[in-house]
């Protein structure tokens, strides 16, 4: 595939990137020390001064920032610029607690637009494309973020937002959408709907999709690529750092390049806080080095992944991070075992007659946790005997147990009976009263 780089820095030599990072980190540290009392106090407690930070290697000396810090300083306590410089706020979905608010200066929005323009370019997009945005517009960063990026690239934006899936597909057909941006679960749903409407996905102009805002597996990628007859690219981000575009996937589809000229990524041991070497799995931690309104340092994402500097065939030199295999927020602890819904998803996708539409129901009977997995069978699945269904349920249960080490009760349900989401998929119901 022909490579389109949006910015020259994407292929810059490592020493140049590090020099830029050092310069920008120093500036950021000075900026937050002078303008964010929360950080000044933290520095003072640690006996740290901005002068102690000399290069990018010193980033590990800085204190961590936690989601709770944003909540404690809700809504604007961690902002580093006066309100008259803030041109936009967004808020996290608040799915795992009280929502948090983030802010942007005009320059922050420009940077955001640029990094997403890089992501769209890496997916093969150009200004000649129609970019169909089915992320929700509003406080959620997905819709307006991709909108900003596609506009920066000079592509033609189709700002559909979420909802009315059949109409979305009609628009896709009539307007000639080239690139689709939405959550992977919504992409799946659109793919199913396209089939239901009797439309041949190959007849659509659509050729690529940029999907993010929730973890998804390789198997799910294959399924989406097949259903929509496109190439599916991952995009990563979180509102606290910027929103989507913190890292993005290239043609190699083996991880996401971190926009290192704007963010420093580290992988740490979530228990000890120690920095782990390249290639080790751990919690991803990001430091903003160009943000003006909300420059968080060493932000604990609670996402578990690893990074690699292995040379990438696309030519980009930015470090790559793996698909996070789950957010520690999404992680369930069932009978003392850490369970990520994405692990279960990849098990389910191994079976041809079921779909990756599933619901995990965790409950507690007496002192013991129970896990029930409801999963939709595929349309056209031929189960004409109870025995066959029970056999399949047993096989799935066995496969889940071999991956997770805990037993689960599997219930196959009819196609399209589990609730669909247009935004982030709701995959877990935890009925335990802990």
């Amino acid at each position, binding site marked *: 595939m022909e490579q389109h780089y949006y910015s020259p820095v994407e292929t810059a030599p490592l020493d140049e990137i590090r020099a830029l990072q050092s310069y920008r980190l120093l500036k950021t540290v000075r900026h937050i020390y002078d303008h964010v009392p929360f950080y000044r106090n933290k520095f003072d407690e640690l006996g740290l001064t901005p002068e102690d930070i000399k290069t990018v290697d010193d980033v590990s000396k800085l204190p961590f920032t936690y989601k709770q810090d944003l909540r404690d300083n809700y809504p604007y306590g961690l902002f580093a610029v006066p309100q008259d410089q803030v041109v936009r706020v967004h808020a996290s979905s608040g799915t795992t607690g009280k929502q948090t608010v983030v802010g942007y200066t005009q320059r922050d929005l420009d940077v955001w637009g640029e990094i997403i323009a890089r992501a769209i370019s890496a997916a093969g997009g150009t200004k000649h494309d129609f970019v169909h945005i089915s992320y929700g517009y509003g406080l959620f960063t997905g819709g307006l973020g991709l909108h900003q990026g596609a506009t920066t690239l000079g592509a033609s934006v189709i700002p559909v937002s979420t909802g009315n899936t059949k109409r979305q597909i009609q628009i896709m057909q009539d307007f000639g959408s080239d690139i689709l941006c939405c959550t992977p679960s919504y992409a799946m749903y659109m793919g199913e709907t396209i089939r239901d409407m009797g439309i041949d996905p190959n007849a659509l102009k659509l050729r690529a999709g940029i999907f993010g805002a929730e973890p998804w597996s390789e198997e799910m990628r294959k399924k989406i690529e097949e259903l929509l007859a496109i190439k599916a690219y991952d995009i990563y981000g979180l509102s606290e750092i910027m929103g989507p575009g913190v890292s993005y996937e290239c043609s190699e589809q083996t991880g996401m390049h971190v926009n290192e000229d704007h963010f420093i990524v580290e992988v740490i041991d979530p228990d000890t806080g120690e920095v782990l070497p390249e290639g080790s799995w751990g919690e991803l931690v990001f430091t903003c080095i160009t943000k003006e309104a909300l420059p968080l340092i060493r932000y604990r994402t609670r996402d578990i992944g690893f990074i690699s500097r292995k040379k990438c065939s696309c030519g980009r030199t930015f470090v790559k991070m793996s698909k996070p295999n789950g957010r520690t927020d999404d992680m369930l602890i069932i009978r003392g075992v850490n369970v990520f819904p994405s692990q279960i998803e990849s098990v389910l996708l191994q079976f041809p007659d079921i779909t990756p539409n599933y619901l995990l129901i965790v409950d507690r009977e007496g002192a013991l946790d129970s896990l029930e997995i409801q999963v939709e069978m595929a349309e*056209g699945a031929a*189960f004409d005997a*109870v025995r066959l269904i029970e056999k399949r349920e047993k096989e799935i249960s066995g496969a889940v147990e071999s991956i997770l080490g805990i037993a689960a009760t599997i219930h196959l349900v009819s*196609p*399209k*009976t589990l609730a669909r989401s247009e935004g982030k998929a709701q995959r877990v119901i935890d009925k335990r009263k802990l």
Partner: protein
Amino acid sequence: MLIKQLSVFVENQKGKLWEITDILRKGEVDIRALTIADTTDFGILRLIVSDPAKAEYSLKEQGFTVSLTDVIAVQVDDRPGALAAVLDVLNQADISVEYMYAFVSKAEDAACVILRVDDNARALEVLKQNGVRLVSTAY
């Protein structure tokens, strides 16, 4: 000599059976025989209908998981020992019956029995050899 049976996956939810029969009503499909194999969470509804293809299409369109299976239908006299005689033939031939169910045949003094066996071809052969009356259509 095989007839098409419709198997529908049904979750144990109130109104599901009504929904299925209502879809068939709207499609003007007649039901000749039915049986349900049930577990705690779901059941498989097996149907012999007037128009299996139409029934399959209509149910699938409404999101049901449906499959068509070839089953054997035999006519059995309405007297003690008649069904035992038929099953004896299969037993002797070492053919296993997965499930079976009966319905009233249009002929008087006879019942129709639907058999799902592990080897359709061989079952047909031995049943014919032993003079069992096979039913080629439920209508």
